């Protein structure tokens, strides 16, 4: 009974937290872009425009829900649901801290520590393609179909190097459990570096971050929404909260990917050279590990915004060329080197 209550609290807390951060991200994105372009950005709703996401949400909720007469009604309504559902659920297996000890009871700061956690994240990430292709096709509009096809081709092309770069991480750690991967990143590597994944997988991390940007449809890979070419891509015909789910799902995906980067490559909740659990109490250690993990994730979230206003959008042939001709061979080379290193050191 006790376990069920703790599990329920963790589910509700992390689910709400994920969506809260994604909501805040829409504000950070707009304020950040304003800062970089030397303008003010949204500053009317609340202090510093902090309530802007709330105002946007209310606006989306009170818009008329239009389904075009030519659309395939079922596919059209299914699209945003199938896009948002995996996006909202992918965080379930990613840790958000080490552990908290309350009244002698140890609470692991992770919603579900399953031994196939890795596969769960990859599988849910791939599910987003269904939402996009069904939404694009269901709209029965040529911009939507073209956008949906382009987007699908891009997502599945980058799915391969994404999977291959993660494969190298599995080779290094020999487990699918994201908590176990986090736990072994404590201490030092080669005597002077923090024992983080990035130092064992430098090429793997570069491949991962490039493919993660493509999977999240972010600049420089935001071709599905190349508004100067195909209006708004697969969500041209969508309005009200159906559009909201597409846009919001993307921000939740960004948060999941940033947390995955921290878990796999940046030592999860560990600080370099310092072992927090040695000098902090059980409760304060839990809170500190949560904060360290979150601050690292926040940096990668900011990186998404930073890159957006730094790098111009690729052309479509460049995107496909990069995926198939550069990233897949590089990912295979990375896999080869990793396997060779393990083979030589056992």
């Amino acid at each position, binding site marked *: 009974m006790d376990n*069920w209550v703790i*599990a*329920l609290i963790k*589910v509700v807390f992390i*689910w709400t937290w994920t969506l809260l951060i994604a909501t805040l991200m829409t504000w950070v994105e707009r304020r950040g872009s304003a800062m970089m372009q030397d303008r003010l950005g949204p500053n009317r709703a609340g202090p510093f425009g902090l309530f802007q996401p709330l105002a946007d949400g209310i606006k*989306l*909720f*009170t818009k*008329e*829900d*239009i389904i*075009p*007469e*030519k659309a395939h009604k079922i596919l059209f*309504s299914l699209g945003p*649901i199938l896009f*948002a*559902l995996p996006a*909202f*659920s992918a965080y*379930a*297996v990613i840790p958000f801290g080490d552990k908290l000890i309350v009244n002698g009871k140890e609470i692991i700061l992770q*919603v*579900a520590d*399953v031994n196939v956690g890795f*596969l769960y994240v990859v599988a849910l990430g791939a599910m987003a393609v269904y939402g996009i292709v069904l939404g694009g096709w269901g709209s*029965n*509009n*040529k911009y939507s*179909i073209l956008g949906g*096809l*382009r987007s699908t*081709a891009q997502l*599945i*092309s980058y*799915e*391969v190097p994404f*999977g291959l770069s993660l*494969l190298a991480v*599995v*080779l290094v750690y*020999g*487990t699918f459990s994201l908590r176990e991967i986090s736990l072994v990143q404590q201490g030092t590597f080669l005597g002077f570096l923090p024992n983080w994944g990035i130092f064992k997988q430098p090429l793997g991390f570069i491949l991962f971050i490039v493919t993660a940007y493509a999977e999240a449809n972010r600049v420089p890979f935001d071709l599905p929404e190349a508004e100067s070419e195909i*209006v708004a891509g697969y969500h041209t015909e969508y309005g*009200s*909260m*159906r559009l*909201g*789910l597409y846009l919001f799902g993307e921000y939740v995906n960004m948060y999941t990917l940033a947390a995955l980067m921290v878990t796999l490559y940046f030592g999860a909740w560990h600080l370099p050279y310092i072992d927090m659990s040695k000098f902090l109490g059980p409760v304060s250690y839990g809170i500190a590990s949560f904060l360290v993990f979150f601050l690292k994730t926040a940096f990668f979230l900011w990186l998404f915004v930073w890159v957006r206003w730094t790098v111009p959008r690729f052309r479509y*042939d460049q995107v*496909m*060329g990069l995926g*198939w001709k550069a990233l*897949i*061979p590089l990912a295979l080379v990375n896999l*080869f080197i990793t*396997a*060779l290193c393990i*083979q030589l050191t*056992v």
Partner: protein
Amino acid sequence: MSGFETIVMYLGMSLLVVLAMIGISAALGPFRPKPRKATTYECGVPLLDPAEKRYDVKYYLVAVLFLVFDLETVLIYPIAVRYKALAHIGWGVFFEVFIFVAVLLAGLLYAIKKRAIEWE
């Protein structure tokens, strides 16, 4: 309890909220249907031609290539997770996997040479 019940709870919560979001938006939004509103978007002019027409076959080609390479990844995952134990036995697994990868890599090079992933 294993983690899977919790995952089901998490998925259930997502489904509930997603459906609620669409439901609330349908309930709160106005409902004033007009024939013009429900027409297909075509940049402000009357619809020129239907959307169901032929699209480039390249998208299909990419999907087929993806299937091959994604299966490759999925097949290597179970080996990868036990690789350290397998590496103790000898070089057999290493060569087995990379002969498999090399065959597929030859396929990729062939596809590139045949210009399967050129977009002009």
